[in-house]
């Protein structure tokens, strides 16, 4: 029957068509991402480890960490004395008023980005055996990862825990210590806060080993001197003045760096120098048009019509009270710009400028402070060191170096660079009307973390 044959043909067509489609499709479900790669293929070679190290720097570059927020917070918290903060970012506005709440956005942002970066460093450290091209390379990679990890734990413990000297730092809660890369999340990843002492011990271990491993020069990346400089700060916080002075001395004598002839040379790194890192910087974060944000510029900066490339939200207006601290003739007093009736620091006008983490001039002041306190002359006399800074600022040399004189230079030299709050806390100076150990000068453990991880204890007052 003709109809029957036609039907058979139709059936055949239908069945063949369906089965061809079905079999062809089954395999097609195995589709892989092209913008990302599987974690099992990510850390197999030296090249993989090196790019993960770059990723760690990228983490540190986040605006919420060394992109500048850490420094911004260390200037803003409770600092109504020097700054009139008129910004609308509630996290910063509340920090400025020392009225933070547990869900402060900057607390959670900085916390999360710091640990994201630490996890990247831990990934690098877990795969060091893949770095086989040379022992030097391996040392450098390990040193850089340890430097970044140690530095970030140092920043976290300063922001989120009681300062050293307030009660027993071996009992006070610091921040959770995570030292291995995160794989499958288990109960062990829900960590309690280690003590402040335990965190400092880890920071010292990381930075000390980093200093021993890192090369003397390393392009834009961390060097031996970056680690030593950071270590000098750590010891200063711990009041280990001899170690602090010794570390600063190693930087001054070993790094081959010298103070810039003029303070201007340390700033406008992009606007005037096309992005060359100033010689005085011991470690800084690069910001380019393609990558990174200078958060110090975001909040302290302002678009000034005479300075092409200047930018910022004009949030931090410098108060008159700040200027009364300078002596006449201090070049640093003139390093401000008047715009729209308010003063702004010139340090952070450059949107694409390097974000300085630590500069050489601080090492002179740290060595001077250590020597004054211990009545020593490690490397140089405190008078010589303090005068080096004063002369550069256009001020007459002092004849005696008192502790007060050294600390005053330190305050003015490092103004609005993120050392204000840590220095106030270690020197036990009042911050505005608040005592150095006021609980509201400590950032809250982010509410989100408290909610997720029941092992965490909140700071007092939140």
């Amino acid at each position: 029957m003709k109809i029957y044959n036609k039907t058979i043909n139709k059936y055949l067509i239908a069945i063949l068509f369906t089965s061809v489609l079905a079999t062809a499709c089954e395999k097609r479900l195995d589709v892989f991402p092209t913008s990302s790669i599987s974690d099992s293929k990510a850390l197999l070679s030296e090249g993989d480890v090196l790019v993960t190290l770059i990723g760690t720097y990228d983490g540190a570059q986040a605006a919420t960490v060394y992109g500048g927020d850490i420094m911004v917070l260390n200037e803003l918290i409770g600092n109504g004395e020097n700054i009139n903060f008129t910004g609308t970012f509630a996290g910063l506005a509340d920090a400025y008023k020392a009225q933070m709440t547990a869900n402060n956005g900057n607390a959670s942002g900085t916390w999360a980005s710091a640990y994201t970066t630490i996890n990247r460093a831990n990934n690098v450290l877990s795969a060091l055996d893949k770095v086989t091209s040379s022992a030097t390379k391996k040392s450098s990679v390990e040193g850089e990862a340890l430097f970044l990890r140690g530095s970030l734990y140092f920043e976290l413990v300063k922001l989120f825990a009681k300062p050293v000297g307030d009660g027993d730092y071996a009992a006070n809660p610091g921040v959770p210590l995570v030292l291995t890369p995160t794989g499958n999340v288990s109960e062990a990843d829900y960590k309690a806060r280690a003590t402040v002492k335990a965190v400092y011990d880890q920071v010292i271990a990381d930075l000390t080993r980093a200093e021993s491993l890192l090369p003397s020069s390393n392009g834009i990346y961390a060097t031996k001197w970056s680690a030593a400089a950071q270590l000098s700060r750590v010891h200063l916080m711990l009041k280990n003045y001899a170690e602090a002075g010794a570390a600063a001395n190693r930087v001054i004598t070993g790094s081959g760096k010298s103070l810039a002839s003029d303070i201007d040379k340390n700033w406008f790194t992009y606007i005037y120098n096309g992005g060359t890192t100033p010689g005085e910087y011991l470690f800084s974060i690069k910001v380019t048009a393609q990558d990174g944000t200078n958060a110090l510029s975001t909040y302290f900066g302002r678009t000034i019509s005479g300075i092409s490339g200047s930018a910022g939200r004009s949030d931090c207006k410098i108060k008159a009270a700040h200027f009364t601290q300078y002596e006449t003739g201090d070049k640093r007093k003139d390093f401000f710009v008047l715009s729209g009736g308010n003063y702004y620091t010139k340090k952070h006008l450059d949107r694409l400028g390097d974000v300085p983490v630590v500069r050489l001039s601080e090492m002179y002041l740290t060595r001077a402070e250590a020597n004054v306190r211990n009545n020593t002359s490690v490397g140089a006399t405190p008078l010589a060191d303090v005068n080096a800074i004063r002369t550069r600022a256009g001020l007459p040399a002092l004849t005696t170096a008192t502790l007060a004189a050294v600390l005053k230079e330190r305050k003015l030299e490092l103004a609005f660079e993120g050392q204000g709050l840590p220095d106030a806390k270690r020197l036990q100076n009042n911050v505005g009307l608040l005592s150095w150990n006021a609980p509201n000068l400590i950032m809250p453990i982010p509410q989100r973390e408290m909610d997720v991880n029941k092992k965490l204890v909140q700071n007092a007052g939140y």
Partner: protein
Amino acid sequence: MRKKLLWSLLASCLFFGTAMAQNSTVNGRVTDEKGDPIVGATIQVKGAKGGTTSNNDGVFTIKAANGASITIQALGFETKTVAAAANLNVKLVTDVKALSEVVVTGFGGSLIKKELTGNIARVKGKDIEYMPTPSVDAALQGKAAGVFVNSQSGKLGQAVTVRIRGNSSISASSQPLYVLDGIPITSQDQSTYGGDMNPLTDLNPNDIESIEVLKDASAGAIYGSRAANGVVLITTKRGRAGKTQITLNLQSGQSEATKRVRMLNSTEYNELAMEAAKYSDDAESIPYDDPYSYTQYMKDIMSYHSYGQWDKDKAKSYDWQDQAFQTGQYRQADLQIKGGNDKTKFFSSFQHLDQGGTIRSNELSRTTGRLNVDQKANDWLDLGVSLSLSRIYNRRLPGDNAFSNPLQSAALLPMSPFLDPTTGLPNGTPPGDVNVGLYFNPRIQIDYAKYTQDVYRTFGNTYFKAKLLPGLTFQTEFGLDFLSQNEERYYQTQAVRNTSSPRGEGVNTGAFITNYNTNSYFNYNKLTAKHNFAATLGMQYQQSQAKYNSVTGTDFPSDSYQKIASAATKAGGSSSQSDFRFLSYFLRSNYTYDEKYIISASGRMDASSRFGKNSRTGFFPAVSAGWILSNEKFLSTNKYLSFLKLRASYGIVGNSEIGNFPQMGLFTGDAGYAGNAGQRPSQLRNDDLRWETTNQVDVGIDFGLFNNRISGEIDYYVKSTDGLLLNVNIPATTGFSSMVKNIGKLENKGYEFVLNTQNLVGAFKWTTNFNVALNQGKVTDIQGQVIEGGVGSMNRVQEGYAIGVYYTAEWAGVDPANGNALWYKNTKNADGTIDRTTTSVFSQATRVVTGNPNPDVILGLTNSFSYKGFDMSIFFNGVLGNENNIYGMGRYSSASMRYEDNQTYDQMARWQKPGDITNIPQARLFYNNGAQISSRYIVDGSYIRLRTASIGYTFDAKKLSKFKLEKLRVYVSGQNLLTFTKYPYWDPEVNADDFDSNIAKGNDFYTPPQPRTILFGVNINF
């Protein structure tokens, strides 16, 4: 779709027709009211077995004894019984009763509403045509019970929230699956800047014949792992045999924003600001005349931002909303041509739409054309093609949270003039002082920057349908959906304060999405006097690939150069790709016995590239049953009750809209630093990841009274979702904030009522369509997770509550003694009771649930009237029982001078002296007195809106014939004409785009309101 059922009817009739007893021959023809042939009408002789069907010319032949009754039935027409005669000309009348509608069920299936056992809401294309809503999803608002639509803002072409029977996911998408003529289409946002855009704008709503919303599991199971949020089947118009019909519709009109918010004028602002500054000076013991006092600061601010004008004229005031709003112009032309013969049928359309937004610089235009052709190739093969091409141009607005959002100009100081008196250019434009204007003046962005989006969209579909055996067909469809999008942003040098790019900035991005889909399936139908059996068996494969690229350039030679070729610095660039694939097999069968008892079963196997390797394939079954009581003897004679059916369904459906590759542990290579490439761990692995599973039970009653002049539906459903695809928060100390797991359960329960009545059926016709739905959603288990989102992270997912409830301190008003803001402590006492005392120390107040952005009740009410040539339609929709969060703007502008922002007028009622009873705390400059996150900013978002109203007149056809016109209708229509609400800001129908997520709903952040549009139109048939 309809034809397929008819074909099968035809086939089965032939099959069973051979054994019939015969008498004399009746030759007849079946036509509609216009005289066009009705194809596939069933003709049966009463008392005899079997019957026949009409052919493509409507002609049939049947044997019948003279005088015997012949019944003629056709889908969509009222059944007619006539006495047998040698030559019969039967004219059938269109059946307008809801119960007789044919409902599309997907994959070639269709059913008469009467015989439906699942829950499918049908919206006719006619009900939404020529509405000034550019996308079909927005047009669904209030039209189908249980379908919640929130247009989110008045920005043109932006995404719309659609929730079918509540929100059934936390982290995965909760939007329904959209299927256009059998192809699941791309409906997710593709924009790179500002709020989400809406890819459904690319479809001309006037091309739509019908929209079927598959709500319950029995209707949706055939879409398996993609049906948990409901499925929206969109069927476009097809041609039909007969005279070619040409329809031209022209409409034009204007839009205005529905509302403005009353802000302070200069005098009021000055009064409040000085009072606030005085408080702060007093609090810090600063003399008012100190150059660094708050008082002096505020005077300087008012002087500075007014270019010194304020010093001379303190009353001069500017309403900055004038700079945001404009009158939008609307113009639209539609041309539709349809026709065909017994072999070829076609429908074609053309549309051009120009819509101006009610916010300055917002524009949308769409040019689209469609051709749908069906061809009968031979006696066993049909084939066809549908093709729609469209181009959409959208000049878009920045996200709500951008300083350049025009509505944020409401926060600028009222003494700040629109124009810089020194240059005559907008306030803050260089070469004038760029820092004038408390914030960046959005007008600069309107005048000196542009953000445009061009979309080229192709929807194409071809099909072959073979008749294999009587009742058995095989159909293969191949569909494609191409979306090509180019976005361009260019900021001239004048926008420097916003961009920080003093020499101009340009961004160009592309998105290319190719989405292929094939369906192949068998349909079998067998119809006898008592038994009716239908089955569908088939497979579907879909593959989608998205490719994106972008480039950013800065430093242009001048503002005349706006393309990135001229950018001296290529500041950024990127390209990426993402894929997903689905392979599915499905089965569906229906059996009806004696038009009384109906059972149906369906199922689908879904495998997807999105699932973990340990759980790649899922099975989604559903069953349903119905009992038509009115066909039982004990009810069939009831005078009033014309129809009564009980139905119930149960099934399992899934949700797999979690993005691509959510199951894999990933590193991403975007972690470069200072020009060197870097990688970072970016996602944690989960090999067990699978779809979310929703079990849904639905029971319903369909009824008809008074010969179905009154008909309706009542449904009760319970949707329980488990294995939620949850972005589970993990400690940030792991280096990740969340990972995707199948954790948690939630539930939606609700009622739906539909009532359609033909109130008057004489010369004056009046029909009413009413639907109302009550849904209660509740998260039952998320294993103690806390998931937050929205403005101030105020939306939260919390066990025992609906998704996205507001979790804040509870506002307790103002202390009459000192003007302090107060909150309820709400802490737990030792005895377990709650401490309801108040505190002025914010940190002492415990957060509690203070509101819910999800409505309790949604409703739609349409009344249509016609008398002679006049027709009128009035449509209200309502959303009741939800709260909105106004903290986005409130923290700045209803905040007792927390910042310098201009304040809303209600702030004038602030506390001033001991004893004042008010809800507005004392104004304290830069002090936080009540602007903290609390229920003060959670407000009632209920509204009832006169969504559309139209009135038209159709001229007498006889008078028109001399002009060669068949029909001429003129009309006026309006949209969003009235809103009844207590909402204090612009629009209660709001959802700030920059915060939008499943969790973050109901937020207002200077969000533009809906437009009120009035259109004049003319509709002509040739």
